[in-house]
């Protein structure tokens, strides 16, 4: 259920919870949003594992304890923010982005900086269905990365 390295949810459990969140939001009529967060790793990033771990910790620290975080694939994090509509989503995402930007990943006295890209989509504003919601957020993270990373993107 939990990823050993980051202690975050594994992808299948996360997917189940995302599906459940959609059903709950549909039934009890509330907004929620999905963030996809990916560190902007470069070819020469030699301590990838440490960065992933530290990024995971920062995300867990920045979101509410009721938010759900999953590690999807090797270096992507998905976050469910219940009751967050577009403005809140943007605020939270921006806060995580800037915290990572200012964070110093250090190992063996060397100082390393790293940034992240965030793509987000909001239910039901951008989509009211699992697949589309994920693909909108995925499109947004691609856009964020294409414009150079260290950015938060939301569907307009």
């Amino acid at each position, binding site marked *: *259920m939990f990823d050993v390295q980051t202690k975050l949810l594994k992808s*299948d459990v996360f997917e189940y919870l995302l599906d459940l969140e959609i059903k709950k*939001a*549909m039934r009890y*009529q*509330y*907004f929620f949003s999905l963030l996809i967060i990916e560190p902007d790793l470069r070819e020469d990033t030699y301590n*990838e594992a440490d960065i992933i771990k530290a990024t995971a910790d920062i995300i867990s620290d920045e979101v509410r304890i009721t938010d759900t975080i999953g590690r999807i*694939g*090797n270096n992507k994090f998905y976050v469910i923010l219940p*009751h967050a*509509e577009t403005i809140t989503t943007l605020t939270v995402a921006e806060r995580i982005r800037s915290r990572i930007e200012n964070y110093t990943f250090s190992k063996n006295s060397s100082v390393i900086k790293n940034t992240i890209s965030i793509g987000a989509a909001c239910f*039901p*504003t951008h989509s*009211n*269905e699992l697949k589309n919601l994920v693909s909108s957020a995925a499109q947004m993270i691609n856009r964020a990365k294409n414009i150079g990373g260290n950015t938060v993107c939301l569907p307009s």
Partner: protein
Amino acid sequence: MNKKETILIVDDEKDMRFYIENLITSFGYNAASVGSGYEAIEKVKTINPALILLDLMMPEMDGIEVLRRLKEINGDIPVIMLSAHGSTDNVVKAMKIGASDFINKPFEPEVIEITLSQVLERKNLLLEVKRLKEEINKQTRYDLIFSNNKKMTDIKSIIEQVAETNITVLVRGESGTGKELVARAIHATSLRRDKPFVKVLCTALPDNLLESELFGYEKGAFTGAMRRKPGKFELANTGSIFLDEIGDMHPTLQSKLLQVLQDGEFARVGGESDVKVDVRVIAATNKDLDRAVKEGTFREDLFFRLNVISIIVPPLRERKEDIPFLIEHFLNKYNLQYNKGLKKLSEETMARFMEYNWPGNVRELENMIKRVVILGNEKTVLTRFKSLDAHTDFGYQNEVQIIKTDKAKKAAPDNGFSLKSVNKRAIAEVEKETIKDILNKTRWNRKEAAQLLKISYKSLLNKIKDYELDKI
């Protein structure tokens, strides 16, 4: 969990195979093993393992390629990768193709045991979910199909014709005829079938609440609006919305609804900006909307807008030839649900069912069958029919009259002199008999009895105690 599941081990090293096989057998599973990818692919076709342990590095065909082929053959079998060379690249690759987990060699026996049981448990859960989903799909598909009636087959063809368009449909018919099923069938046959189907019962909420339910509200729109709430129309975006009992909607809401139908746009309560939606509207009512329009309680423009295609579901009494099929269907449904084995109704009950005029339509029939299945006999249903035959309205009125005169005579004084006490005793006698009778009629359903007697539930309980009435 059933531990006698077969696990297939694929590894080119003989010792390793032997070791894992022993380990797995000791955990209580069955084990089978092969030495190459090709053999694995052949083996999967014959033994259908519950899980596969697959070595990543093998000569000829490597683990990744084997995994890909295995997933093509049967994507439901979970595969756990084993590797002594666990590079991140291969892990990612295998996970992307669909490996369930990864174990690094060398490993502790417990790691294998825990991983196996976790993966198998997950697999069983997924299979269960899949099965339940199929069951639900099947149910919604079949509910409408059984019918020999011309009107019903007509409805089916109308549904098929309109389903793929985005036309608004108005479903009309008496209560309990299956208007919602028609709406669901339209959605299920439409191109929007994978999108949400949102149902709103317009009578369930007071008007102002219904407005915020349908259109949502902004934070601070009214006291208690703590945060922005999306409306049902937003939730149904790209799908269908089913507005049940639309005839009871308040005229002010009707105009807002009309605006959504015309422009596909609306504002949340307390909001300024418009929300754009693409929703197919299916409305239903058991009211005579033509008359409501004439009386001015239903907006004419909205009526025309909704009434592009109108489907009228006939009441059950006009399609009695469907009753046997419906009975069979509901018997099966409730036998399954309550784990009972009632296969057929008796001739007598069937005859009664065919005669009856079913004011509550299919829903009434369904409830009756449900009761028969749960109780396991048809007695109560038959009793009900008999009492319906004998008197309308359970015939209480007439019987009470008879009791009154009869008992009043008997209550004449034989040991009392005061007229007042005679009066009291007579009333008590009559009351007692009446209450007893009604209680027996309602099978001691005290709530129903109290309603029929037009007294409060509590005073009925008091009277039962006073007159020392007992269930016989």
